């Protein structure tokens, strides 16, 4: 029993007593169950396990603090209408926005932030970290940290491009199908059915094996795979709008299809479409990461998170954590986008639960 363990339990038990005294039932339950879990893990894992729990709790508290501060910051700088909405955002959504903001900064200013170029060989292979290289070198002696920063630009940029293309194609087809109906609607619907009945990764592998792995091919293939999802959603959403009276009125006025789509239908179906864009981005991002990991995505020497994991995987068998950082970066961004999308869906639609 050293002072760390005594302090650890004293803090937990003190906090749970405080929570119980002030009738904070949920907080009390959380802290007290943490205490009980600590007893068990402390006996099995000893002091290191308790240290691990402390660090995890500290990180969680730090994340919560950062997201709270970031939300308050956004509320102050945003115009009135937006600020009112932001006030309803849960901490998870604020955290998501903060992470997306950080990634955007890293991606846009990559050449300024990164100390070395993405393909610059500066030391021996797998050199350990020193004062020059924050995270050490990769399998060819390039700076890992710089490559991760550049990866934010390459991987996320490619995913954004593919998502945007899938979205534009899918949404346009969906809107046209909803307004025009008839054989066009039928044909697009069946085509979407066929594409969606092949697993996306398998379809992507088939296409890439045929057309090779250039960036253009990747973007087009991924747009082809994911546009049916957007098509279905847009068609469903726009289908509900098309039957409204004001659309009828606009048609009687003699407005064309393009006017109907742009001025009447689109403004009334943006909220679910924006949420769908976020979800779609997550799928595309994970698919691109998977393809790159398999060596079929972005080709070297361009820095890319998926292939970085694969190339440095040998380090894992020596107990090193560094190869996992790019993978963690992928997971973190996807989680962040999901948090924001969750909040938007909750706000905009019928996901309000009992």
């Amino acid at each position, binding site marked *: 029993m050293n002072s760390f363990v005594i302090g650890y339990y004293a803090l937990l038990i003190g906090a749970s007593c405080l929570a119980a005294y002030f009738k904070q039932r*949920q*907080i009390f*339950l*959380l802290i007290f169950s943490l205490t009980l879990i600590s007893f068990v893990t402390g006996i099995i894992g000893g002091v290191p396990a308790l240290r691990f729990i402390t660090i995890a709790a500290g990180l969680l508290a730090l994340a919560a603090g950062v997201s709270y501060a970031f939300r308050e910051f956004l509320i102050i700088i945003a115009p009135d209408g937006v600020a009112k909405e932001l006030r309803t955002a849960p901490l*998870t959504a604020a955290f998501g926005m903060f992470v997306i903001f950080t990634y955007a900064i890293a991606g846009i200013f990559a050449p300024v932030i990164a100390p070395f170029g993405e393909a610059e060989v500066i030391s021996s292979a797998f050199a350990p970290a020193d004062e020059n290289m924050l995270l050490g070198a990769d399998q060819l002696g390039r700076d890992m940290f710089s490559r991760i920063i550049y990866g934010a630009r390459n991987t996320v940029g490619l995913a954004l491009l593919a998502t945007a293309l899938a979205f534009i194609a899918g949404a346009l087809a969906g809107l046209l199908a909803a307004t025009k109906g008839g054989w066009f609607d039928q044909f697009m619907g069946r085509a979407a*059915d*066929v594409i969606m*009945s*092949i*697993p*996306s*990764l*398998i*379809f992507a*592998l*088939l*296409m*890439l*094996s*045929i*057309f090779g792995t250039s960036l253009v091919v990747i973007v087009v293939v991924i747009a082809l795979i994911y546009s049916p999802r957007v098509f279905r959603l847009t068609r469903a959403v726009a289908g509900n709008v098309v039957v409204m009276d004001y659309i009828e009125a606009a048609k009687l006025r003699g407005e064309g299809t393009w006017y109907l789509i742009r001025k009447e239908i689109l403004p009334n179906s943006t909220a679910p479409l924006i949420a769908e864009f976020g979800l779609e981005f*997550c799928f595309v991002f*994970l698919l691109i*990461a*998977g393809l790159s*990991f*398999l*060596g*079929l995505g972005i080709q070297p020497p361009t820095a890319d998170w*998926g292939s970085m*994991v*694969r190339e440095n*995987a040998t380090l*894992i*068998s*020596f*107990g090193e*954590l560094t*190869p*996992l950082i790019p*993978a*963690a970066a*992928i*997971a973190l961004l*996807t*989680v962040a986008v*999901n*948090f924001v999308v*969750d909040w938007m869906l909750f706000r905009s639609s019928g996901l309000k*639960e*009992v």
Partner: protein
Amino acid sequence: MGDILQLVLKRLGLGVVTLFVISILIFFAVELLPGDIAQAVLGQAATPETVAALREKMGLDQPAILRYFQWLGGAVTGDFGVSLISGERVSTAISDRFVNTLFLACYAAVIAVPISIILGVIVALLRNTLFDRVANVVTLTSISSPEFFLGYILILYLAVKTNYFPAIASLSSDMSFGELLHRTFLPALTLVLVVTAHMMRMTRAAIINLLASPYIEMARLKGVPAWKVIVKHALPNAWAPIINVVALNLAYLITGVVLVEVVFVYPGIGQLLVDAVSKRDFPIVQACCLIFAATFILLNLAADVGSILTNPRLRHPK
């Protein structure tokens, strides 16, 4: 009874048609190659004579439609032609690996399905409590992580640092069943983590949806005890959505298995597909894609049929 049979047969027919269209897509996608397969295999440097010879050997001088039906006929009887690289029969290369992949997927499913349904129901009953929110964040994180991230974390902590399980899932034919389970535990666990998170969230949504229906409220208002509401009123109606959730997620396993097999160097069909893609070995790619797509369609079909069978309203359509 005749109605159900008709409905199921109709759904089955639709599945067969979809599979047929997909086989056309898979076959003719390869025809889109600039030049043709022979040219692509031999590369730019090949002399016209060798290309012509290979073309003859592969039967490429026949029209594409004819070759498609030959290929489809072969595929139905389990003959997918010959590998372009090794010259081995595709069916022999695939058969063992397919069994391995099926084993891995079943292993993961057997663990994941009961856990996720039980947890999903618990989370749905405790909705909007702190426990529910924590579960929400944890499952979301698990869904958002690429499979290889989870896989390598498990390797790092359960294989490299502690040595509980082997990091590489190599198989041999003389292994006992217990050793087989031990060897393939980490890949199975990776799949379980991803699929459980998906299934939990979907089960939760389905149950919450159900608990919001008027007849549940009615039961509560007339004073039925909480457990009886669940067992007598909610559960019989929950089977359809739960069966749906399970089948859809098993279909999801199909894609997940490819990445997991590569991470753990597991001798399955997913790894074979990835190798064939990078070597541009088209007969193998086509065969693997067809098998994956067929399994995917089959599971989606099972989801549909399952929900028809457990839902009296669908069983007796007006």
